[in-house]
């Protein structure tokens, strides 16, 4: 026990005095979390929840204006600003890029619509011989009623079409409702107080062609980047760890340890414990960044789910996988330069495959299949299960198992390599 405690103490002292190592282990992943969360915030919102800035100038006090207003609000795709401006001023706002879209509803639009519909109904009833008592003013029927829509110059045609058709749908519905109401009135039919809502006769139902998981739906820049760069930071410890092993070997400390009583495995466990401790401190700090720092930068707060124990188990298993990998690299490579280069490059590749840079679900199918073999993916998807799905220990056990197996495979290879190459 004294040997183990002493080794942990020694490793911790060496690590804490290695300023370069501390920067790699703590500052770099914290900076990456902050930067990547800020950089990827817009694309993530774009992907899921970004709202399009829309300027609404509603000069109408009636039903038409309020229905369009509520329709736009209920669509949840617009960030609506309501202002009272002239057409010229609106045009300037859109041109300058302040808004992607602007809609101007003219003054008394509802009255004009009602008047047009009323004259249309009367005309039709007269033609049908159902009523001839009312006079028809043709000028009212042909009076112009236009909603003005302004798009920013870079708006795609397809997007324009969808907005126009959506607005057309809203106005058609109001026209139909007004028509129905007036027919009821003229034919003296009950109209439920004039508030009868028309239901759609045909519903549109969207069917996804690709299965979308709950995690994908809830994923935002913070929920992705905090666990992703936490795992990355933990795995980047392979550089310090392999360096420590090579340095000990080069400087003769390894040989000295072998001449001392007791098993080298105790020393190795001490080394793994120290680096695992660093991994766990890293993990806590990174989660703190997501919980307390990023929200102050205008980003969403990190949601970490309900199970601290499950998070701890994932963090420990990811830390063990990282330290196991570090020991393997430190054992196989002869120089610190070789180990640090290979360690860094391999972790970056595993990170790219594991969905650290961009989520796996936006990757092509064949890359997604390769992701299944990245330990960083196992760690990241375990965190996603806990954070986004509110998963428990059981839900992350397969990932934990994979990480532990990865750790033991690395240690096993290192053991046999060491045995065969130092005879």
């Amino acid at each position: 026990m004294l040997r183990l405690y002493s080794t942990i103490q020694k490793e911790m002292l060496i690590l804490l005095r290695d300023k370069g190592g501390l920067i790699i282990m703590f500052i770099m992943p914290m900076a990456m979390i902050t930067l990547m969360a800020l950089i990827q915030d817009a694309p993530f919102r774009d992907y899921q929840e970004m709202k399009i800035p829309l300027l609404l100038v509603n000069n109408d006090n009636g039903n038409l204006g309020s229905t369009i207003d509520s329709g736009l609000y209920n669509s949840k795709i617009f960030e609506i600003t309501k202002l009272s401006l002239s057409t010229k001023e609106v045009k300037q706002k859109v041109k300058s890029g302040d808004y992607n879209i602007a809609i101007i509803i003219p003054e008394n639009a509802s009255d004009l619509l009602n008047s047009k519909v009323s004259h249309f109904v009367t005309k039709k009833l007269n033609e049908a011989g159902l009523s001839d008592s009312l006079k028809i003013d043709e000028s009212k029927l042909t009076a112009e009623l236009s909603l003005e829509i302004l798009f920013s110059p870079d708006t795609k045609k397809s997007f324009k079409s969808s907005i126009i058709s959506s607005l057309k749908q809203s106005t058609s519905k109001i026209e139909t409702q007004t028509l129905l109401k007036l027919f009821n009135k003229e034919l003296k039919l009950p109209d439920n107080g004039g508030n009868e809502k028309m239901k759609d006769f045909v519903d549109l139902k969207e069917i996804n062609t690709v299965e979308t998981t709950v995690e994908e739906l809830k994923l935002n820049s913070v929920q992705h980047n905090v666990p992703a760069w936490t795992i990355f930071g933990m795995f980047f410890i392979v550089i310090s760890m392999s360096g420590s092993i090579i340095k000990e070997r080069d400087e003769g400390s390894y040989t000295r340890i072998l001449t001392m009583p007791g098993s080298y495995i105790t020393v190795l466990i001490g080394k793994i414990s120290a680096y695992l401790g660093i991994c766990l401190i890293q993990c806590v700090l990174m989660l703190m960044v997501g919980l307390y720092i990023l929200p102050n930068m205008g980003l969403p707060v990190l949601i970490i789910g309900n199970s601290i124990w499950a998070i701890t188990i994932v963090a420990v298993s990811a830390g063990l996988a990282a330290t196991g990998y570090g020991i393997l690299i430190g054992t196989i490579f002869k120089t610190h330069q070789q180990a640090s280069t290979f360690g860094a490059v391999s972790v970056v590749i595993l990170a790219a495959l594991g969905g650290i840079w961009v989520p796996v679900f936006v990757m092509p199918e064949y890359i997604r299949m390769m992701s299944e073999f990245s330990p960083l993916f196992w760690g990241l998807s375990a965190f996603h299960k806990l954070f986004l799905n509110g998963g428990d220990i059981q839900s992350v056990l397969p990932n934990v198992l994979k990480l532990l197996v990865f750790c033991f495979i690395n240690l096993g290879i290192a053991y046999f390599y060491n045995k065969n190459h130092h005879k």
Partner: protein
Amino acid sequence: MANSAIEVINLIKIYKGASIPAVNNISFSIEQGSIFGLLGPNGAGKTTTLSILCGLIKATSGEASVLGLSLNNNIHEIKQLIGVVPQDIALYPTLTAYENLRYIGNMYGLSGKDLNTKIQDNLEIVGLSSQSKQRLETFSGGMKRRINLVAGILHSPKILFLDEPTVGVDVQSRNLITEHLHLLNKKGCTIIYTSHLMEEAEHLCSAIAIIDHGEIITSGEPKAVMKEHGTENLEQLFLKLTGKTLRD
């Protein structure tokens, strides 16, 4: 032999992939309480022999025992009885002298007041007690060598192996190290030592063996061996027996 610290019989070591043995059927005995110099040119087999005796590598064949304990069966007990001062400064540069020695002491099962006393006493002897809180990376070569020596003797070993303990150090540090080795020897510690410095070996050792190409070519008390080969000093004897050809 009951009085032997080390007993080596027909020891052979052939490294994996090598065609020539690094140690070729050597036998020798080292008396308890002696200072034994294992001398030889580069690649002669000195470090391999020491590595086998320290339990770092296994011999291909042959037998060796340390204080009557067979290396094959008692390696853990033997490691507690021996101390090793490697040629490299096998310590941690970013730790202080005290932290390095505390770690080494803990590894030998020493702790608390006993360990602190041993550290302070030894640092006092090697003249580094006032620098105990300084990191090793700030030490000169000679200071590092002295700490390296202390690290090997902290647990009061019965046998001390030294692989060129004075290489690259200033005259004062070398003098202090050799004086300390004499002191340890007087206290009953058997010392097995390798060096290229023949003058130092002649002054220090009570027995020597010259090894070349993995074989012991002569052994005995330095004066007796020199007399036997008709040389005035150990350096002449060394060159006479190992030749003047440069070794890699």
